[in-house]
């Protein structure tokens, strides 16, 4: 190796080491900035980081470091100073630097040759004079740790399932309903003086009034789910706030798990709506598990639990509701008008009508239980008894709700199970009925309705049975 080659190699290595050092510091600085941003965004401001942003945050430090490295790689170095530093590290008494100096000023001088001869023994060890800077090692290690930290926090943030506060939305919704209820109360007061001309004549108005009242109570299901809608969009008769919250939650969770909004089936979405509206602790607990689930499997599992909870709640409620009432299937309460008339009480709410009287507000699962149409290998429990799987065996008939309602007819056509109206067993036409106020009280109590709302309902049924409209 000649002195010229040494100078060339030393300059190249020096430039590279300087570029590495500066690049390392730039990398560290950018990593620190990324870490600061990530920490503030996630831990302070609660901004959830999407994968693209995580990639940017983790990638920018590398890019910055690389840019600085490349920028400095081409810039010249003070080779005299570099060689002097090499002299110190190798204990060469300024041989390399002096050789470089005389090489620049008097390349033909005899002193240059003399110096080159003296320095030749140190040429092979020249690399030891330019070791990897500790600063580069430290800055790179620090930057790497920060980038790993950013990535971990980012992954944590990305996989975090945000809990849309359905319950807060629900409370808001209830508050709005309460306001509506107060307005309804006023309206009911105005209608109090009107007469009820008969159950047949009242049926038409009763149907609309019932719906309105139930809607006021947050229990209306007119616009129930159309499960077959494309993309699984939610179309529930719930409050728009709840719909929006559910849409948001489903969207975020679906995107997180990479399935879009079709992540949940319409039935599962409907279950969520029902659960959100329920006040049963077991249902709320199951709903919490769904909302807090961290993966798709967990969500699926929690949803299954939720469906069970809803079913249990509904069954328990129905059993409670009918503990004093005989079902039309020939049970202990067969003294009711339905049995007495020989014409079983019509069950509706199987399809588009959705039914107006689902007592619990639980939708499909409840309906399946009521109708016994659920795909259950085991015989369904129906009002506390074992229900036959065949509707004909149960003595129940399923009738389509008429799309148009006349002023006359069997009022039972428009009433569904759970409505505490008893028909006269001697009256086969089904045009007169009486109200079981005790059951109304029980039902209303189970709804946790306010006293005002309870009063309105009671007045409403009073108006029906007393011939009001």
């Amino acid at each position: 190796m000649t002195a010229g080659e040494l100078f060339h190699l030393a300059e190249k290595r020096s430039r590279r080491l300087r570029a590495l050092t500066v690049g390392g510091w730039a990398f560290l600085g950018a990593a620190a900035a990324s870490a600061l941003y990530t920490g503030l965004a996630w831990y302070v401001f609660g901004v959830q980081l999407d994968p693209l942003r995580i990639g940017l945050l983790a990638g920018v430090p590398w890019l910055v470091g690389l840019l600085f490295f490349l920028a400095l790689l081409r810039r010249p170095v003070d080779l005299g100073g570099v060689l002097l530093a090499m002299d110190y590290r190798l204990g060469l008494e300024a041989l390399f630097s002096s050789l470089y100096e005389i090489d620049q000023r008097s390349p033909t001088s005899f002193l240059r040759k003399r110096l080159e001869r003296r320095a030749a023994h140190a040429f092979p060890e020249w690399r030891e004079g330019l070791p990897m800077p500790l600063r580069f090692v430290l800055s790179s290690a620090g930057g790497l740790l920060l980038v790993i930290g950013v990535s971990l926090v980012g992954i944590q943030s990305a996989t975090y399932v945000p809990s849309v506060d359905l319950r807060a939305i629900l409370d808001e919704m209830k508050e709005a309903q309460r306001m509506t209820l107060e307005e309804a109360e006023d309206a009911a007061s105005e209608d109090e003086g009107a007469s009820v001309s008969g159950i047949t004549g009242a049926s038409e108005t009763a149907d609309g009034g019932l719906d309105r009242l139930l809607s006021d109570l947050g229990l209306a299901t007119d616009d129930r789910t159309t499960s077959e809608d494309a993309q699984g969009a939610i179309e529930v008769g719930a409050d728009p706030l709840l719909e929006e919250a559910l849409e948001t939650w489903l969207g975020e969770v679906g995107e997180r798990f990479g399935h879009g909004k079709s992540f949940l089936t319409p039935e599962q979405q409907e279950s969520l709506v029902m659960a959100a509206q329920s006040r049963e602790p077991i249902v709320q607990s199951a709903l919490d598990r769904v909302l807090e689930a961290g993966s798709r499997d967990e969500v699926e599992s929690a949803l299954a639990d939720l469906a069970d909870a809803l079913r249990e709640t509904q069954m328990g409620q129905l059993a409670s509701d009918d503990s004093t009432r005989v079902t039309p299937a020939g049970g202990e309460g067969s003294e009711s008008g339905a049995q007495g008339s020989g014409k079983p009480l019509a069950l509706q709410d199987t399809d588009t009508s959705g039914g107006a009287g689902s007592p619990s507000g639980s939708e499909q699962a409840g309906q399946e239980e009521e109708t016994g149409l659920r795909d259950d290998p085991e015989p369904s429990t129906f009002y506390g008894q074992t229900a036959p799987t065949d509707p004909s065996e149960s003595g129940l008939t399923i009738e389509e709700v008429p799309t148009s309602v006349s002023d006359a007819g069997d009022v039972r056509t428009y009433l569904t199970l759970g409505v505490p109206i008893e028909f006269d067993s001697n009256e086969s036409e089904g045009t007169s009925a009486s109200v079981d106020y005790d059951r109304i009280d029980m039902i209303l109590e189970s709804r946790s309705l306010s006293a005002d709302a309870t009063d309105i309902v009671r007045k409403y049924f009073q108006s029906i049975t007393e011939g009001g409209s």
Partner: protein
Amino acid sequence: MITEKGFDSALRAFEGLKGAIETVIVGHDDVVQATLIALLCQGNALLEGVPGLGKTLLVRTLASALGLSFSRIQFTPDLMPADIVGTDIITEKDGKRQFEFSRGPIFAHIVLADEINRATPKTQSALLEAMQERTVTVGANTYTLDEPYIVLATQNPIEMEGTYPLPEAQIDRFLLKATVAYPSITELISITERTTEGAGITLPAPVATAENVLTARQAIRAIPVSAGLREYVSRLVMATHPESPYATQKVREFVEYGGSPRAAIATILAAKANAFLEAEANVRPADIEAVFFSAMNHRIILNFRGEAEGVRVSDILDEVWQSVRAV
């Protein structure tokens, strides 16, 4: 352009010169080195020490070993400039009277200005032109001094009564200041042995020539100094300035004036000469270290506080040396 042969011959000559001086002077290696460095750098040296330490003998030995003319001027308070540089005297030639310049003792290759601080500043300043410009101006005439030329001045650091401290402008013209210390016991034994036995001290025969000195002066200018070391020396000198960012705590507190650019020049030149005398082909950090204190210590002017507190310049320079690093 110095040739390799000329370089080596000059080097050999100075090795012989050092050897010749050592036959007479016992110890005082650093003083001998400073004197030779001053000679090589075309500079002047200030030798500081109490009387009787061999300063005059050193200068005489050097002149003898080089075969150069030598003159000694004993400075006293009544010494006049004309006593040093010479004067025009009336002479009669061919029946006509005319002024003729009579050269003073300053016209020699090696001038010993003994106890220079005893003369008045006016007389001291008579040396300025000779020391810096290598010329002497008397009346309207300027005379060039013969090369190699060197002024070696001595001063007594203890006896201050009746002395005139050298002005800053003059003291800055001394390349180096060497302190002549007391010899050690072994050196003292050797001195007594040499001076009291046999024929006593015999000055050496010439071992080098003026030509060798001039060649060596070329040689040391060819010796390379790396840019990093130049920067290092500059930072060292700057660090002696109280207002400099490189200044140390002691410099800020006790120094009135630091080293001038001439100090940096002197340091680098002296380092080159030191490398040459060490038979090196380049200036090493060790060369700078060897000459830094002698090149700087007479150029640091203490402030009133420094003088009052008796701060030693060597302590300040030591702090500067420790604080400034080459790399």
